[in-house]
């Protein structure tokens, strides 16, 4: 399935775009998405950490992603 991944903060710089279009296997999990992204963008592994958000909620590693979901990569937050 084709997915558009939203990027913020330093991840936007790593992807070189605020939205990244990638091909993902149907019903992939969050951890599978991370593996795909880290292969393509090894700099992700240098971050202190990063989370995946599915439909505006922090997602667990085993959560399944569907084609309709809004997916975002959340590097360490630093608001306030």
């Amino acid at each position, binding site marked *: 399935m084709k997915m558009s991944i939203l990027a913020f*903060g330093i991840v936007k710089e790593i992807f070189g775009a605020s939205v990244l279009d990638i091909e993902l296997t149907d019903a992939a999990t969050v951890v599978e998405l991370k593996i795909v992204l880290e292969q393509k963008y090894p700099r992700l592994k240098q971050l*202190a950490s990063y989370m995946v958000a599915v439909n505006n909620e922090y997602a667990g590693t085993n959560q399944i992603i569907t084609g309709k979901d809004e997916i975002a990569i959340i590097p360490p*937050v630093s608001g306030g």
Partner: protein
Amino acid sequence: MIEVKISGTALNIQSCIDWVMSPQCGGIDVFIGTVRNITKGKTVVRLEFEAYEAMALNEMRKIAEEVLHKWPVQKILIHHRTGVLQTGEVPVIIAVAAAHRGAAFEACRYAIDTLKKSVPIWKKEVFEDGEIWVAAHP
């Protein structure tokens, strides 16, 4: 009552205080974050804030709901800025009103501490000789 907002323009401290003020409340606690001019000995030229707005508002609302659940607080307001901020400008305001000061102090501290951990907002510090996304790297 809860109010959360993300704004691309200057936050208004007085209107935040006015919003939480109510006759049942004997105390208002306000946290105002300001842009510091020095980080680790380096002069900060400006900060740039970016938010994943829909999710950030969700997370801010969750913090506010949690506060109302945990403490006898009447009103809580959380406002956060995005965009470019200069030294002395205000990126965040949290105002909490309660019948008594103890709850207001505790709830306000909890709200800012939790916001810094969970709300998807990022700041880039721009120095004279470079820039850095805060907390991005270990």
